[in-house]
């Protein structure tokens, strides 16, 4: 499997921003400051379990369901 991390990150940004571009941008920055850079993940990125666990944790803290 591949691409799960990118899908989760996209869901976090979409759900949190609800289409607001400013909030989408600040949400991406918050992810980067937490050590997860959305630009580093594509549909071909391996589903690294540690990274997925970290992304799930961040999603939960941000109140986002993935």
């Amino acid at each position, binding site marked *: 499997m591949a691409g799960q991390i990118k899908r989760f990150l996209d869901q976090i940004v979409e759900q*949190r921003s609800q289409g*607001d571009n*400013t*909030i989408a941008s*600040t*949400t*991406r*920055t*918050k992810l*980067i*400051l*937490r*050590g997860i*850079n959305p630009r580093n993940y594509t549909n071909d990125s391996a589903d690294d379990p540690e990274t997925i666990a970290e992304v799930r944790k961040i999603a939960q*803290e*941000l*109140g986002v369901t993935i």
Partner: protein
Amino acid sequence: MTIKAVYSTEITPEESAADLSSKLSDITAKFIIFFASSKFDSGALASAMQKQFDSASVVGCTTAGEIVSGKMLKDSVVAMAFDSQALEEVNIGVVENVKTENRVPEVFADFERKTGQKMIDLNIKKYVGIILVDGLSLAEEKLMDKIGALTDITFIGGSAGDDLKYKTTYVFAGGRAYTNAAVLVLLKPRVEFDVVKTQSFCDKNKVLEATRVNEAERIVYEFDGLPASEAYANALEVPVEEADSKFMSHPLGLMVGEEPYVRSPQQFQGSDMLFYCNIKEGMELNLLESMDIVQDMREVMKAKKIEHGKISGLINFHCILRTLELEQRSQTEDYGKVFEDVPTIGFSTYGEEYLGHINQTSTMLLFK
């Protein structure tokens, strides 16, 4: 609508508060924010300020130097007053025991009761937050992460200083001085506002990946699998023995697009590097090089004046490392003059807050 910036260089807390009150006698303040030298007795100053402005919400913190329209100061108190035409709502909360706990949700619950809205639902164009935090608590990252998780409102601010003594810093609210604490302020201005972040660095296009760290202690053991000091010196192309002299001019930046979120080295500890904010394992950081802070700030302010037409008030959270660099270059007077025609207060911080905890930056809240 009035936003007014004043300062006092009186000797005692009581004299300073009385002096500021006298200079603000033409305004009925709804909210006072002040920044004070650590030379004052903190408890006495907090009490004196609240007593002088008894009908206002009063917050503040200690500093490593103060800024007011046209001047950079030492041993002073600077204050900004807002009347009720400038601010519709002011909500204040204190987060205590920040070193060991994270009680931001309790303060936010109180804000929600007062505003009648969930923090996550607040309109980001109507509300803005200020955070003042104990600058020696090492707690800024976890506080900012929690704030950022619970709201999309921008919280901007600074880490309190103590004039480079690195002993104790204080935040003030409601007539009390707190250490090991943060003050959160939720404002609903009646005027438009803007948040500005500027750091006066260029990217040297050299990347270091943190491969072994102690995040909580803000230590990097290794970059790119090499001892941190060696990797940093290699990037600078200088011997390790000379590399610590480059800390101020060549910090590292976590890049968000073209925008660096600066991580400043504090010291070598053997081959480890201690930073002023945390670095996570796997983070890629770019080597930065300092530019002219005064020129950069002139350009920022010029652009903002053009964008907004006028600026009725500005709060500048300005890194102490930038102040030290300005002092080295004998530019403090020039820097102060950049804000000569704008009601401004600010202070030299032990770190700046905007979305996260950053260094060697000015984060500024600007009122139109």
